[in-house]
């Protein structure tokens, strides 16, 4: 049997300490990614550190009104938290569009940020995958790549970042608090996930660190949000394309717009140019379509996923339309 050392950490410092000198170590919280991948022989940790006892399970409102989410808050608790529902409905909508009730009950905020791609070649240890085994090649690029990325890919990797929650975080804006052997630091969520480039095995800006909290940017007000997730079946499936939209309206003019995409990119995909285009425009379909075109201007299809571009376009337009409707209702 493949053996590994198992330790339960009772403090954040201790958890980080236990990781030292053990490059193949892994933290385990809900286990919804790690356990599957260990059983598939894709992840082979030599040491597993259980962090479930750490005091990272609360959502706090900071003095500046921002919400600070402990890394061990479960997806379910986060989605139904009254402050999240009040300030950041997009986050709740995105989380509830993902996985299943059972998975959300186990999965944590930190774990969701760390979840691995669903690329089938990554999950098959006999296939070529630069992410799993650097330098082995990429079977997906010219293989069966219906589920793969049209944005942010490289010759080395076109695997999609699978999270719904992270799409909402990208749109909302957030700061991650990381604890390392040399203390704590903060990083913008937009910089946390890395593009694959020539090093797809390096997925995060992490240096022997543990995510301890996610602090959300202050909410936009008045606000309309919508998360539109397109997938083959109605639930329990990763996105083919998803769009998270936030709009503030001043009469019928867009104040600020936020837009992020899932299911189509190698990392949670914020669409700054599209947002800039929307600001000050009338909230109508033509503007949403123009924004979608800008958001997808750089999209490059692979052999089996050209459909993702028009599908993402539709998801963007629908998400913006619905967000505007909600904002209008709130204004009324």
């Amino acid at each position: 049997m493949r053996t590994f050392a198992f330790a339960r950490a009772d403090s954040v410092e201790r958890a980080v300490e236990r990781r030292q000198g053990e490059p193949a170590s892994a933290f385990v919280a809900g286990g919804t990614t790690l356990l599957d991948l260990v059983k598939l022989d894709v992840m082979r940790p030599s040491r597993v550190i259980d962090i479930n006892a750490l005091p990272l399970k609360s959502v706090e409102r900071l003095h500046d009104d921002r919400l600070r989410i402990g890394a061990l808050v479960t997806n379910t608790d986060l989605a139904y938290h009254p402050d999240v529902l009040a300030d950041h409905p997009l986050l709740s909508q995105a989380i509830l569009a993902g996985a299943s009730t059972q998975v959300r009950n186990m999965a944590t905020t930190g774990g969701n940020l760390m979840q691995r791609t669903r690329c089938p070649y990554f999950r098959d240890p006999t296939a070529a995958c630069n992410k799993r085994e650097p330098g082995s090649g990429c079977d997906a690029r010219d293989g069966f790549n219906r589920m793969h990325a049209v944005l942010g890919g490289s010759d080395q990797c076109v695997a999609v970042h699978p999270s719904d929650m992270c799409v909402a975080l990208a749109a909302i804006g957030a700061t991650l608090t990381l604890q390392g052997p040399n203390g704590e630091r903060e990083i913008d969520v937009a910089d946390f996930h890395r593009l694959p480039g020539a090093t797809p095995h390096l997925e995060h800006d992490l240096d022997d660190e543990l995510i301890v909290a996610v602090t959300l940017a202050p909410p936009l007000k008045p606000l309309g949000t919508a998360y539109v997730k397109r997938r083959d079946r109605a639930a329990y499936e990763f996105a083919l394309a998803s769009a998270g939209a936030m709009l503030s309206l001043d009469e019928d003019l867009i104040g600020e717009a936020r837009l992020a995409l899932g299911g189509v990119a190698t990392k949670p995909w914020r669409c700054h140019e599209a947002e800039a285009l929307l600001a000050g425009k009338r909230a109508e379909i033509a503007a949403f379509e123009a924004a979608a075109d800008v958001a997808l201007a750089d999209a490059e299809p692979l052999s089996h996923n050209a459909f993702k571009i028009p599908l993402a376009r539709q998801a963007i337009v629908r998400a913006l339309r619905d967000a505007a409707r909600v904002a209008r209702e709130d204004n009324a």
Partner: protein
Amino acid sequence: MSATPEHHVVGRRTPRVDGEAKLTGHADYTVDHRLVGMLHGYPVPASIAHGRLEALSLDAARAMPGVVDILHHGHFPDLHRSPNSMRDGDAVSEVRLPFEDNRIHYHGQYVALVVAETFEQARAAAFRVAPRYRQEPGAMPGLAASDAEGSEAGEYTRGEPELAFGLAPVILDETYTMAAESHVPLEPHATLAEWREQDQRLVVHESTQGVFYQRNALARIFDLPEERVEVISHYIGSGFGNKLFMWPHAVATAAAARMLGRPVRTVLPRQQDMMTTGNRPASRQRLRLGAELDGTLVSIQHDSLTETSMVDHYVDACGGVTTSAYACDNVATRQRILPVHHGTPCPMRAPGEVSGLFALESAIDELAVALDMDPLALRLKNYADQDPQRGLPWSSKHLDRCLEGAAERFGWAARDPRIASMVDGDEIIGQGMASATWFAGRQPCAARVTLLADGTVVAACGTQDIGTGTYTIVAQTVAELTGVPIERVEVQLGETSLPAGPLSGGSMNTASTLPAVAAATRDALAALKAVATGPGGDFAGLAPESLGVESGALVAEGRQASFAEILAHRRLADVTGEGNAAPGDERREYSFRSFGAHFVEVRWDPGISRLRVARVVSSIDVGRAINPVAARNQVEGAIVMGIGMGLLEGLDYDPRDARLVNANVSDYRIPVHADMPEIDVELLDYPDYRFNELGARGIGEIGLTGVAPAIANAVYHATGKRLRDLPITVEKLLASDEAPTGL
């Protein structure tokens, strides 16, 4: 639903007699059996689909903790291939023996079996086995990637179909394709094999739909007399056809148990289950229809090509349904098969016919559009009052009632046939329909019924309950004939030590098993009457035939004596009856089929290209439903499976090298609860006593037939897009720009 008189048990909604055992974990599935000294097998699957295994490095794996042995081509006994005969009852799913040579014919083919003290040890060591392959070019990823025509595998002709097609004023010539599908039974395949020293027997627990087929095949393969092999399968977590006949994991496991002198259990992980235990093969079907202007069909030609593997010749006969579906004088079907580098296909729920009906019922819908006719009216116009293939009357056919009754409940008359004409907010409602049909067959069956002195009854038959409710309907039949409460009837199934029973397949189990159980029950009652009327009996001196049976007692002359009293008074522990049943001369006089109709409503949101099935209304004519609650469950489950076939399911093979990419239940998409539409099933109640004394034709498959074309037809109504390739996924809806005219 027809009312069933209170005192009848057959035909009454009956909770499963094995429900409590399943809910409390007492039902012993194969993996629940643990034997002393048991070892665990874990197969090593080939990571290529076409080539040779050049070397197998085992040192690292052998050094892993708990590893006892590793079986492979160079370390495996000489065995015999099974003759693979349906007639002799030794059919297997894949004739090639495991590790027979070093050729690799499909991704997942076993190259080794690691045997270790625990499951986890076996799995960890299996990951350390290091095969070296020489991959060969030219892997066939599936028939969709080729224009090869395959080889002939059967044909049928009546009349002059080509001539009639040439003369017909309205014709249709279209091609329909379907992806390969996986069965995805909840319980994966599992084998536990033990070579028992004390009685020199091979005892195998297997999740199988046919214990006797597996017994016979193991006997041939290991060169043993049949009576020295025992196969046990008390509970099965469904199979849908991929547990009908034995697969190589069972052979490898039995061989390992013999080599090592210890019991060995192998449970296939889901990935390997999907790679190595069959699939519904992909198909390409060309339909040519010719019709008069009034809709009368004058020609049907149905050419089918289905996949088989490199190691077997599996034929998924798509045209089998077309020969008798409509009253048409000129019909031809031609079947061809094409070997591809996949695991061997096998029957999957309504094999052949479900694929064939997708093509035929889609084509009929297209023809209706071309004729500007209601598709329901077109089907009634060409209604086959008798079997046009055999020229015989149907034993019992009420398809017209199905079509009209389901249409009524669905509200078909209110449908606006114009495309995209029914709008609700962002969504367009589409409505479509199709007919359903499946053949009715029977197999020989033997059964034994024992009346015991404690007043209970034991019924035994070597068939299986694959989760459909066979335990319950056997108990109902015995309770009906004896008047003993169903709680006091024990049913024993799933062992080759019991009287030989049929496969649980082809929807044949009910019609095959229950007549034998009924015969055995009557035989046991006759034996009891002989006891009761014999010297010292409760009815000594009376003629046995003068005795009646009521509520677990014999009655005559106003007196009654319970079975228990009668046996006690004669100091007997029990009496036993044997019964046999088999299809007879009825086949010469009638044709037997089940029928049905599905009406489907889809909702299409063109703004985000989202398609969902919203509503299914079905009427099903299967003769008598022995247990209506289980029968309805079969149809509802089949409709769900049909939604998977229509919109979601397909095995994805790498186009370069035929590797199976989505061998897991995340990437191979079956419907989830959120996909469930409103389902309304009506079971017609026309007992078919020409088929058997219970009037039942079986219900496992029919609910699936016709669902996918009804969906595709509804999609056309909603979108104007005629999708002729299953599953109807979003990229096909986005890509299809066919003009909404049908032809």
